[in-house]
């Protein structure tokens, strides 16, 4: 059992609420997942050539050594150490073709205790073993300003409990996923994705979802097509939330085995595992639309409101991983 939540605001004047709202939404879901928690937050204030890189360390790494090595590879516009994290802003203006995946892999080889939490123009992922309140306090997330985000409370069923194995998971810049459920063809999918070049960093079955979506988007598919294909290829029980730089998506397995409730008001779209989490929103409107997504239903919401889409899966498979 795990708890998941996602939020997307329809108007920029609401953006200053993101950190506070998302933490409030996952707080009551701690009962579904008491061991760890995490959030992926999207803020789009950056300069186009600037990329945020968040590194986490569970050991005793010397951050100045990491920074020194990184500065030889890439231009660093800004950096800051917050307890067990090093937050960097990379300036790619003069290195537009830099292979960031390779950079992160090299970094993790040189500094084995360091784990890259997130990378992207908008994305920042914060996660830890412990309570939601402690996470918010540690990284001062209550004041985080942004357009959308997803969160998770974890009760581990498949793999070890440590920071790297907490959700959200990422596999590429500005992509994050959270998952409630179990993936039953994990090893097969992992093997296939590794053949395609994916580098797995944990033994958590949910990580495969991030790599799977990245693989399909990389081949040019829009997010909704990738999620339709996911329903064909990924076995098991799942309610999954996916976030990209400008989209929030929800997909539910064919048995609708794991819960989800959607709230849509004029101000926002919110998805949570359990209804009671909505009541933490200060302006929750009980007359707004509250509904449950059906089995195999794919929903995609965009940061720009006119692009909202909702449809049921059923379209023929596109390019695929062969099962």
């Amino acid at each position, binding site marked *: 059992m795990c708890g998941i939540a996602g939020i997307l605001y329809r108007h920029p004047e609401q953006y200053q609420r993101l950190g506070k709202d998302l933490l409030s939404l996952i707080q009551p879901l701690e009962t579904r997942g008491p061991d760890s928690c995490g959030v992926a937050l999207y803020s789009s204030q950056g300069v186009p050539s600037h990329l945020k890189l968040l590194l986490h360390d569970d050991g005793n790494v010397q951050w100045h050594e990491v920074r020194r090595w990184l500065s030889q590879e890439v231009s660093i516009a800004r950096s800051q150490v917050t307890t067990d994290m090093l937050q960097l802003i990379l300036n790619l203006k003069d290195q537009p073709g830099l292979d960031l995946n390779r950079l992160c892999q090299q970094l993790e080889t040189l500094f084995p205790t360091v784990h890259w939490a997130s990378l992207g123009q908008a994305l920042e992922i914060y996660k830890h073993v412990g309570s939601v309140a402690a996470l918010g306090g540690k990284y001062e997330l209550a004041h985080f300003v942004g357009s959308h985000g997803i969160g998770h409370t974890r009760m581990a069923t498949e793999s070890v409990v440590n920071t790297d194995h907490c959700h959200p998971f990422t596999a590429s810049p500005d992509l994050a996923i959270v998952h409630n459920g179990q993936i039953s063809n994990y090893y097969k999918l992992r093997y296939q994705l590794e053949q395609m070049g994916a580098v797995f960093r944990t033994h958590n079955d949910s990580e495969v979802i991030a790599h799977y979506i990245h693989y399909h988007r990389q081949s040019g598919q829009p997010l909704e097509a990738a999620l339709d294909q996911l329903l064909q290829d990924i076995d098991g029980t799942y309610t999954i939330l996916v976030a990209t730089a400008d989209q929030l998506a929800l997909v539910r397995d064919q048995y*609708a085995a794991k*819960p989800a409730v959607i709230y849509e008001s004029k101000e926002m779209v919110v998805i949570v595992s359990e*209804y*009671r989490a909505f009541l933490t929103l200060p302006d929750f409107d009980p007359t707004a639309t509250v509904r449950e997504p059906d089995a195999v239903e794919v929903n995609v919401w965009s940061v720009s409101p006119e692009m909202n889409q909702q449809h049921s899966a059923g379209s023929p498979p596109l390019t695929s991983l062969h099962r």
Partner: protein
Amino acid sequence: MMLEQTTRLQTTIDCTAFTTRAINQQLKDLASSGVKQVDLLNPAGRHNLAVGVQKPIQIRFQGPVGYYCGGLGNGVQIEIEGSCGWSVGENLVAGTITIRGNASANAGASAHGGRICVLGNAGSRAGISLKGATLIVAGNVGHSSAFMMQQGRLIICGDAGANLGDSLYDGEIFVGGSIASLGADARYEPMTDRDWQVLATELQPLGLSPQSSPFKKIVCAQELYHFKARDFTRWKDVY
């Protein structure tokens, strides 16, 4: 022990002030002491409310409730002014639960007796493993409803999702709207005058008219009661 001479017949509990365990203990104590009606304010979608109340009492929730509301009840009369989460009335023994809203998955799971009325829609697996209770849904139900139903009656006034009545053993299902598909070993049965009378008796108290919909009856085909090698593909494809 002497009972108080002036027993209050009606009382109100604000859920905000108590743990779920304390609320359920109070409900049991009030039922035992002869209180007729309790209003619960601010249930706030909490799970396990009014579970295991074994004596007659009328309980009214002024708002949505979470999972398992009214489960294991025996003789209770529960009204929910709002929607409810998974497994409302799970293992109900006797009494009634009325939901003036929507019910999430597994409504009335394994209920042995009594009556559960969902005045909105119910989610997937409504009436799963129903063991004798009556479950009425004024709206639609999701996929795999009445899965492994063993006894009792499921009345759906709206539409039913895929795999209705999959692997059912016994009992009867009525559907007023469309049916996406029947599950393994479920079959249609012609409606009789007695069936229409049963629908009238069950639906009219809720203000619903059975004659307004072309109700269909579904029962167990009893073809999978015993394993036969020639039915292997049907067994393999069950659920």
